[in-house]
């Protein structure tokens, strides 16, 4: 057990927990943020992606001990922002969501990318999303959605 402090979706949290716990399990089971999905459990698919200090990480391979003092944002917290609305609308318009399992992670990856690079090229978008697997869409619609979000949200990032 160890005392761990962090910010989760803008709320200060302090817990006494086993720092070996996977961040993914803490987010889903303890805080019930079930928008964070478990796909592979090995860092390969991006379904469990969240933002730590604005950067994307895969929460299935992040030990809780590594988030001490950090700011974590899940899709639930992010969905209260204006940027999320722009990305969500772009995904809907481009048909970038089918079964939806990869979508929270894809949106987190889109945000992490646009936050660093508000006007990415197609190649940069593909690199930005390269850790997120989608079994349904074939990726092209998702890439288009990110491009469209960058244009429509110009000035937001």
């Amino acid at each position, binding site marked *: 057990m160890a005392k761990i402090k962090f910010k989760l979706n803008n709320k200060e949290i302090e817990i006494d927990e086993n*720092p070996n716990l996977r961040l993914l399990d803490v987010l889903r089971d303890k805080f019930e943020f079930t928008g964070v999905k478990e796909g592979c*459990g090995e860092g390969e698919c991006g379904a469990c992606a969240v933002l730590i200090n604005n950067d994307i990480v895969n929460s299935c391979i992040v030990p809780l001990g590594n988030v001490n003092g950090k700011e974590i944002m899940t899709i639930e917290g992010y969905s209260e922002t204006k940027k999320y609305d722009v990305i969500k609308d772009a995904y809907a318009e481009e048909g970038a969501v089918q079964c939806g399992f990869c979508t929270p992670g894809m949106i987190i990856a889109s945000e992490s990318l646009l936050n660093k690079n508000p006007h990415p090229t197609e190649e940069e978008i593909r690199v930005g999303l390269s850790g997120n697997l989608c079994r349904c869409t074939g990726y092209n619609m998702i890439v288009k959605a990110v491009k469209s979000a960058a244009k429509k949200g110009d000035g937001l990032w």
Partner: protein
Amino acid sequence: MVKNVIPVSYSEALDLLNERPFKIIAGGTDLMVQRRSWAQTPPKFSEDVLYIFNLEELKYIKEVDGYIVIGSTTPVEDVLKNKLTPNLLKAAISIMASPALRNMATIAGNIGNASPAGDTLPILYTLDAIIVLESIEGIRELPIKDVITGPGKHIIKQNEIIKELKLPISVFTNSAFEKVGGRKADAISKVSFTGAVNIKDNKVLDFRIAFGAVSATILRRKDLEEKYVGLTKDELIGKVDEIVADYDPFVRPIDDQRSNKEYRKTVALNLLRNFIETL
């Protein structure tokens, strides 16, 4: 009773490591997968864990006395984005998995894991990187080739920590890092080739070659490299068959599911040949 600790300072980490054995976790991208148990349960560690990833004191990249010095908890994504980082190291990091992985993974973890397929390792060998190990007893500075002794094996002591890496600043007129894997992101390297040459006034001043995943540790042979220093560029290119033949006996990949060994060997030697022929 397992007692995991998140130290608040580097000196606390060194003190703890001196008191009792710990397993160090940096980014955890190797350990969290290797020690994985069932979904919804934490990974299993038989030893106490020391979490060093958030030690800000060890997050830096700076130039000091002819070296680029990289603090051990710096995530590789930050190394990739830094102006001081040598291009070869950037090339290797940029094809490591995905941004999400690069935001956690560290070069020190790549060293600690000591896989012959670790992508930053051939670059550290090529650049003659010095690994700075610290314990309460003091500092040891060792060349990377003396730190890693076999697959998964290294000489880092139980009470030591990798503090930083020192990369001697070097000049190369031609350099290349090539990795042949499956899917670009997330494929643990099948075979990698690193070449770095400095040719000035038509003279080969420096010639360095390294291979990843073709032997128990990264393959680099200074004895072979020295044979070709002092030649003109055309002479070097003219000796391509001899160079390939020199390396042939040392390229001994193991067979595993990722790709068979004949394929790996052919690819490795072709990458070497292509590098020299296109200088």
